[in-house]
């Protein structure tokens, strides 16, 4: 157990529907340190996204949240909305599942990225801002950043849009990136690129990462520690051994099905897949 | 379809609205045989009476019984509105379904025509038509139809196109379903449902339109009872005898509101994912 203050410490977080009291998440918790990657796995509907969004105060209005969520020691849930808003973008960044809906369809990508940059550095000169955006896009392996900047979201594929979202991480340099099923809506090639980018991001920028996904392969590639959620509760937690040696019956089921999915392929190609 | 009806009947609000409308229609239909005063019987000496005694809601400036005029007014206002709504939606639905089904150039030409109609502000168009053709109930209905059919056509065309592109229609085609099958089994029920929601929601505005035209003297002519015209007559004595304006106003308001609420309930009933108001 590290002695540093965790970047984000969530304790006993419970989320329920405000009007009916129905529980969505019960007593969830985790500790995330700087530069660490936490994987949150479970099936759709397990409450992974809601728990994470509630922990940073972005839960849907119909839900009520109880518990503690400490960001660098300060209680996020007790903060004013304005106080939290100061953190979003600058220190905490959210990558959503559907890259198409992350961008305004009527505005070119370049403008939207510049806008995000200006939120964090309002006094930056326009030449310098454009240079930084192009640099960030180039780091995402785009061959022609200028063309990407001129494009509208509908002209790019899902994978390309997701990489543009990741470019904002390099522009804004937050302390924490929350990625909510970033590869689920993408085909395997784009998904692999996105996962590789997350790996590079962690190495080069040292950002902490919360990776919410139902794909155990992604989690195994990235996570230092992980929690398994089912029907709103955390049923297992730990380091990578949770996947290699699962204890809880449900975790075993998840691992089992993932292995079954890869079984034929592994047998035929002799390995569990290639390297990037 | 009967599931939807069941859901609708289980909704308290919907039941209330349907009962209210049914009651209105019943009163209107039975007006000649009900034991109420003659709506056109003038009694100058008995004018501006307060509610009570022989006149439940009082009398108007010519001594006519307001309650009776309200009931007889149902026949004019509500029936004219329903007739206008039926004709408009029938024409609009047919036009839009053809455009949406034919696609291509036919669709484009038909929709441009509809766009031209929609570019006229509907109130101005109605006034112009009635102005040209002269006042009267029939002309009022014609004017409403001309003003509104294009909107319904466009709505129906959108619905038809969306359903034609749906995955389940594609599946049926792959299985060898002909156009007739798709029309009868998927398009017609799906489109009818959504269209019905629109129609219910919009009936209130037609009632308002008819009343407004009569208020302006462009609809029915005296001594026929009609709610909008009753308002018009009452506005002359608004300050001295405000009760005369109150009753037709309440009648219009409650009828329009009732259709609006019913439209909401119908829409909720069609949306199977919606839990239903009373938690079902």
């Amino acid at each position: 157990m590290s002695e540093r203050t965790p970047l984000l410490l969530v304790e006993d977080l419970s989320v329920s529907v405000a009007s009916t009291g129905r529980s969505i998440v019960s007593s969830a918790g985790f500790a995330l340190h700087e530069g660490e990657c936490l994987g949150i796995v479970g099936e759709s509907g397990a409450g992974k996204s809601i728990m994470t969004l509630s922990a940073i105060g972005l839960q849907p209005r119909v839900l009520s949240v109880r518990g503690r969520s400490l960001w660098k020691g300060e209680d996020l849930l007790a903060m004013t909305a304005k106080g939290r808003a100061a953190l979003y973008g600058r220190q905490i960044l959210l990558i959503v599942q559907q890259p198409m809906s992350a961008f305004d369809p009527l505005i070119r990508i370049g403008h939207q990225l510049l806008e995000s940059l200006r939120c964090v550095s309002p006094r930056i000169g326009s030449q310098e801002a454009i240079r930084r955006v192009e640099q960030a896009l180039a780091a995402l392996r785009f061959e022609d950043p200028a063309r990407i900047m001129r494009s509208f979201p509908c002209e790019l594929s899902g994978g390309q849009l997701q990489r543009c979202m990741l470019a904002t991480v390099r522009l804004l340099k937050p302390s924490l990136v929350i990625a909510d099923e970033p590869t689920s809506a993408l085909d395997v090639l784009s998904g692999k690129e996105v996962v590789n980018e997350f790996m590079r991001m962690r190495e080069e920028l040292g950002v902490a990462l919360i990776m919410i996904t139902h794909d155990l392969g992604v989690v195994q590639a990235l996570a230092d520690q992980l929690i398994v959620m089912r029907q709103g509760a955390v049923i297992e937690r730990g380091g990578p051994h949770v996947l290699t040696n699962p204890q809880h019956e449900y975790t075993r089921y998840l691992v089992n099905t993932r292995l079954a999915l890869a079984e034929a392929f592994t047998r035929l190609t002799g390995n569990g897949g290639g390297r990037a | 379809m009967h599931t939807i009806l069941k859901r609708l009947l289980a909704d308290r609000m919907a039941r209330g609205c349907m009962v209210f409308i049914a009651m209105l229609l019943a009163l209107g239909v039975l007006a000649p045989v009900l034991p109420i005063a003659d709506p056109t019987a003038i009694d100058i000496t008995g004018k501006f009476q307060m509610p009570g005694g022989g006149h439940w809601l009082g009398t108007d400036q010519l001594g006519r019984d307001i309650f009776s005029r309200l009931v007889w007014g149902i026949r004019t206002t509500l029936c004219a509105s329903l007739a206008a709504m039926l004709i408009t939606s029938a024409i609009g639905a047919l036009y839009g379904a053809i455009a949406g089904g034919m696609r291509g150039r036919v669709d484009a030409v038909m929709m441009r025509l509809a766009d031209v109609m929609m570019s006229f502000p509907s109130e101005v168009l109605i006034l112009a038509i009635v102005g040209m053709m002269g006042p009267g109930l029939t002309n009022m209905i014609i004017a409403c139809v001309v003003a509104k059919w294009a909107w319904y056509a466009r709505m129906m065309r959108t619905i038809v196109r969306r359903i034609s592109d749906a995955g389940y229609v594609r599946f049926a085609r792959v299985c060898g379903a002909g156009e007739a099958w798709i029309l009868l089994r998927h398009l017609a029920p799906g489109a009818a449902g959504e269209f019905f929601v629109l129609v219910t929601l919009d009936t209130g505005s037609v009632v308002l339109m008819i009343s407004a035209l009569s208020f302006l003297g462009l609809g029915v002519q005296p001594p026929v009872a009609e709610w909008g015209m009753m308002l018009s007559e009452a506005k002359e004595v608004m300050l001295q005898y405000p009760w005369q304006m109150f009753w037709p106003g309440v009648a219009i308001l409650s009828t329009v509101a009732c259709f609006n609420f019913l439209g909401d309930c119908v829409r909720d009933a069609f949306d199977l994912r919606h839990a239903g108001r009373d938690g079902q």
Partner: protein
Amino acid sequence: MNKFLQLEHVARSYQDGVSLVGGRTIWPLRDVSFCIHEGERVGLIGQSGAGKSTLARIVLGLERPTRGRILMQGRPFEAWRRENPAAMSVVFQNYYESVNPMWTVQAIVSEPLALLGRRDDGRVGALLKAVGLSEDFAARYPHQLSGGQMQRVCIARALIADPKFVIFDEAVSSLDVSVQAEILELLREISGRGLAWLFISHDLQAVTSVCSRVMFLSEGAIVEDLSVQDLAGAKSDCARELLGAVMPFQSGFIDSGSVS
């Protein structure tokens, strides 16, 4: 084995932009030729934009090819479709959109039978059981089912009229990984029925678990076509790229039981 489906130099083009002013012609499919034999389970794999959706629509008969021809059991495509109604079926990617939301599961699954003018007589119940759902699902509506359950219903619907050929168009791509594994196991169970199928996907793991042969589609043409046994020896760039894109997953946990 007899040839069941044959595509010969099929190509498809669209006009992009307003053709009056002079739009570009796009060729999502440039030259596709392949053949599926009776009872064969073939996978078609390619990236987004390779032309998979266009090819799927053409094989399903929803679009006509600009060039080339399609033969089913030796007969021209359109003629075969007329002579064999409901002999071809499909399972789409978006399971909620591919069913009529106002119909019960019973009505949805029995639609192909109704198209043929046949009555149900218990087939719906039998098929629901065969896909792992209990018979009381027949009275439910689509919005009451989870994604995995809905896709099982779609599979039941695809099989009810005893088709000779089923196309799975990214049928598992929208499902959770754990549910994908379950559906793929279901497909393996039903593969004994002797029907030919075309399994379209962007995920090589899914394709290898249910197919005996795989075709790689890239930029509108089939670049490689080999048996899954020979997969490790694939030579084309497209195939090597897709092979390398599979996320590895290792675990020391070995469970001898089945997936469900």
